[in-house]
């Protein structure tokens, strides 16, 4: 089509904007709060549909549905044991490593439309597309460079200079370059806890994932290191979708655009973060946020 030239892509006409907005509002129609008023929601990156998960006979996630917005930060909050970690680890099929676990439902990853939970999906490929950062820094017993290059090698990159370039880009994106550029060949264990955690973020970013999962990434860090990670998480949303579990309500408020509140394995409330914190729709959410339990 002649009209689909570059010029129109750069400056879409009012008509096209309206069509796109309508499509987005439609996609979020199950979540009227998000798409209400003048707020135009972002595209949905991952759509969790009626997801349930069992450890043996124990059901830890109960029929959860939430949309994860593209290139935004979504926070999972809730009291200890409510299933935040369990839900997060469904996204990269981490539970597959253990016996006696069972998923039900779907997590549809857009735009490819892949259902992460589908048996036919190769979890290893999935994990190259969806990175993860753990509760405690877990660098490998290797050099700083090799830690970050690890995923690239798994993904099949071989060229020395290409790997070096990507490693540098990832370490820069993790705001660690200035501190380690002169000692890339030194063991990762020589770094401080906060630096190790940023190294783990670089490791997760190196393969250019579409989405990164964070499981309470600052729970083992001091306030200064925590602040750096929070800043970093926010800067990441320029390029990736972020799903973060946190125990810390202030943290959720500071870093996230959307918040999901879980309780006893169920999703109680999902909305824009300001809404959840300022004007929660459910009494349970309100009680949790005001610190009355958890």
């Amino acid at each position, binding site marked *: 089509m002649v009209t689909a030239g570059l010029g129109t892509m750069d400056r879409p006409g009012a008509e096209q904007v309206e069509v796109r907005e309508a499509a987005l509002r439609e996609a979020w129609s199950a979540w009227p709060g998000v798409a209400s008023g003048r707020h135009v929601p972002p595209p949905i990156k991952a759509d969790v549909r009626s997801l349930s998960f069992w450890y043996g006979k124990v059901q830890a996630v109960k029929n959860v549905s939430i949309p994860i917005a593209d290139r935004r930060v979504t926070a999972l909050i809730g009291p200890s044991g409510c299933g935040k970690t369990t839900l997060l680890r469904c996204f990269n099929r981490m539970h597959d490593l253990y016996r006696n676990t069972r998923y039900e439902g779907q997590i549809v990853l857009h735009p490819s439309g892949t259902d992460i939970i589908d048996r036919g999906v190769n979890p290893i490929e999935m*994990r190259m597309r969806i990175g993860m950062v*753990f509760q405690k820094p*877990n660098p*490998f017993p290797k050099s700083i460079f090799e830690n970050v290059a690890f995923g690239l090698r798994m993904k099949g990159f071989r060229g020395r200079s290409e790997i070096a370039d990507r490693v540098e880009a990832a370490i820069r994106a993790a705001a660690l370059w200035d501190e380690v550029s002169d000692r890339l060949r030194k063991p990762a264990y020589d770094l401080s806890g906060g630096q190790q955690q940023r190294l783990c973020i670089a490791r997760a970013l190196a393969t250019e994932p579409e989405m990164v999962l964070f499981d309470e990434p600052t729970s083992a860090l001091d306030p200064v290191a925590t602040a750096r990670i929070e800043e970093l998480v926010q800067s990441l949303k320029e390029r990736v979708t972020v799903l973060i579990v946190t125990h810390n309500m202030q943290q959720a408020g500071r870093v996230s655009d959307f918040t999901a509140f879980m309780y006893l394995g169920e999703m109680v409330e999902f909305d824009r973060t300001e809404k959840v914190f300022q004007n929660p729709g459910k009494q349970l959410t309100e009680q949790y946020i005001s610190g009355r339990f958890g």
Partner: protein
Amino acid sequence: MVQPRDAAQAAKPVERSVPRADAAASMRFRRAVVDRAMQGVLGLAAASSIAVTLGIVYILISESVPFFRAVGLKTFLTDTMWTPQFAVPRYGIVPLLMGTLVTTMVALAVALPAGSIIAIWLSEFAPARLRETVKPVLELLAAVPTVVYGYFALLFVTPLLQRLWPDLPTFNMLGAGLVMGIMIIPYVSSLSEDAMRAVPMLLREGSFAVGGNKIVTATRVVFPAALSGIAAAYVLGISRAVGETMIVAVAAGQQPLILDPARPLDAMNPGQPGATITAFIVSVSLGDVQHGEIGYQAIFAAGLTLFVATLGFNVAGYLLRKRFRQAY
């Protein structure tokens, strides 16, 4: 609430009469005495093991001194022949050391790779049930008397090898070394497996999370993370190989290697008979050397050499462990 015992006891005298308080005090006194006595007994046990070690070192050195006075340290270390039973005896330790070196290398060539692979499989791949059956079976290998291994090498492995190399002599270091390697496998695999299983799951998850598969995770993450423990396992394997006696005495022949200074590498060929330091020591102890003779003292000089070598390995192992110690 269950109260700690001490707290309960301390609480009693307060509400009871004076004699009870006395009883409690004497009870405390008795306990202190028993405590001290136990400490003494344990200390004595620890001290006795040190005393025995020191005693052994003392005897090794004191019996070697007259030997070195007569032969000279330089001759001992540089002479190319070890012929204590000849009319003109020569006492160069190198042929025996070479015998020990060659059999040890052959054994390690079997035990280290096999032990490591078995450890990786047991720790990372075998289902728990299977692992719990395989481990004790494997450890049985280490419980077989070594003289049995010696005859296994002589009567089974060597004839098998002779089908491949018809020239192989009946007594040879290759067969002995291979069988010694089999014997050492469980020492290497068991300790290595313990070290690998101690690696936290979090580290494995980190590898899987960036797209690692099981093999990559096992070999490139878990194995290096367990390196300090694995190094310790290797050092134990080496010590066992160096100190092994019966297998080499039975299956490798007891004639010391003949060193040809023109062709020094010939001594490294395992397809020939050879005597190790340990094999020499048993062969002498079976013979009729008299206490106080120089041939008798040669045993202690050889033993001292072995002791120094083993000590060296243990120190190396200690340093390795420190070098690779990982804080997970």
